[in-house]
């Protein structure tokens, strides 16, 4: 089960997370390798979102150590947190789009924050919005989008910055089959180009059709972690 430390991009070592008295994560130890495709599943409230939050320091771990791409998260100075976060492209479960900014601005923000040139930003944002089929809504404000459209913008924002790792929290929850397939293909393409993908999901379809490791959480605990070399391994996911 222990992965080779050399190629691990994320190492989680005896991590606990409590919110007040509520134990959201209990003694999680997990390595994620470079270019792995990991599906995290488990019932509602199992701690999937919390686990992702710990990785990008959306919350600090209560106990234990986490290393991301060689950075020890418990030691990272406040100033370097943005550098950590730029390693990730994050699709939030509640999208977290800025309501006053247009679709274009929301996606461009990532590149602007990374100090990219305006020319480049324009080109990349347009091309990414095209891949998620949202180029015709480029000037719309998020509140005027349908649930699925918002989710696709969130996906676009997550991939636009060429991150090392994508964290996708329920990335297809509001999408119909076809749009979901597009998104999954996008994630798979990112994976093929060498990226690491961690998807938290309940979506049986997604789990069935995706090859990669399946990590199951239950009540904050790591239940099992199964390598499935072909999508046929689906029945284990039950």
């Amino acid at each position, binding site marked *: 089960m222990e992965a080779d430390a050399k190629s691990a991009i994320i190492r989680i070592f005896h991590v606990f997370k409590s919110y007040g008295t509520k134990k959201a994560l209990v003694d999680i130890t997990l390595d994620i390798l470079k270019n792995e495709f990991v599906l995290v599943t488990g019932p509602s409230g199992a701690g999937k979102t919390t686990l992702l939050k710990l990785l990008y320091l*959306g919350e600090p771990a209560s106990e234990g150590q986490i290393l991301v791409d060689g950075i020890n998260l418990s030691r990272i100075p406040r*100033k370097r947190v*943005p550098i950590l*976060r730029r390693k990730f492209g994050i699709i939030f479960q509640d999208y977290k789009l*800025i*309501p*006053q900014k247009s679709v274009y601005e929301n996606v461009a923000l990532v590149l*602007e924050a990374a100090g990219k040139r305006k020319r480049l930003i324009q080109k990349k944002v347009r091309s990414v919005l095209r891949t998620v089929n949202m180029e015709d809504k480029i000037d719309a404000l998020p509140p005027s989008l349908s649930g699925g459209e918002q989710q696709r913008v969130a996906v676009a924002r997550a991939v636009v*910055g060429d991150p090392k790792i994508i964290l996708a929290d329920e990335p297809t929850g509001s999408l119909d089959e076809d749009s979901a397939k597009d998104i999954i293909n996008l994630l798979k393409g990112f994976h093929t180009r060498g990226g690491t993908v961690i998807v938290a999901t309940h979506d049986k379809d997604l789990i069935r059709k995706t090859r990669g490791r399946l990590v199951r959480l239950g009540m904050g605990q790591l239940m099992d972690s199964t390598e499935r070399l072909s999508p046929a391994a689906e029945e284990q996911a039950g």
Partner: protein
Amino acid sequence: MKRYYRRAIQDLLSNRFLNSITVVTISLSILILSAFALFLANVGDLVNIWRQGVRMMVYLQPDLQRDRIPGLRAEIQNMYGVAEVSFIPKEAALERLRNQMQRQSSIIVGLDHNPLPDAFELRMIPTTQTGGKMETLAKELEQLPEVEEVEYGQQWIGRLTSVFNLFRLAGSALGALFFMAAVFIVANTIRLLIYARREEVEIMRLVGATDGFIKAPFYIEGMILGALGGVIGLGSLFLMYLAVSSNVEASLTGDSFTLRFLPPEMVGAILLGSIIVGWFGCYLSLKQFMKT
């Protein structure tokens, strides 16, 4: 830097409701502050005009030769605090007394000789017009052998001075109070403004924006809002000033008093202040929201 300005302008436009309310509040605060400053400045002018009426009489020895007057005058002129010296021959003094006495002037009609001495009338420079300083000057004058007696409205001046001092004290205290209140109101309003946008701040942090990247446009916006508020506040005050000044001056004929607007340095200082306060409000709120 240029792109921060662009983002700041975009943000200002996309939060128009919030920003217009904020600008109105800032304008009103600036208006309060600057209106009070204008009030104090003009009252101060008025007081100075009055003070120019404060005089000191220096009565000379009855047997003093008139040819020694110019030398003495020059000597007095050089004393500390003296603004102007004029010679009042005793004939003029009697005439003046007659006019001043009004009804009681019957007393003077029956006189066979003029019992009054020649005198100098002094006008003091304004800063010397406190009870203490006038007394010092009077003592000094009385040392001169040519001077018999020095007279000035000791009691009246003392009283007026203490009232003016009270007024100035109260005015400065109120001014300071208004200043602080305006600063806090502006800062608070900007805090509410940024609070209403805290979600945006949080999201930007999550997608890897540095604190500097997030803060810069807010600071620019805060300063623009402060500047706008300052311009609008001072602008409204100026319009009110224009509307009022002609009426007031007409009602004040007789005094060489013109209602004036705040001096340019003051206008500049208020504008600068409102920009700084806009910045400061951002500083306070961002410090708070960036911590968590």
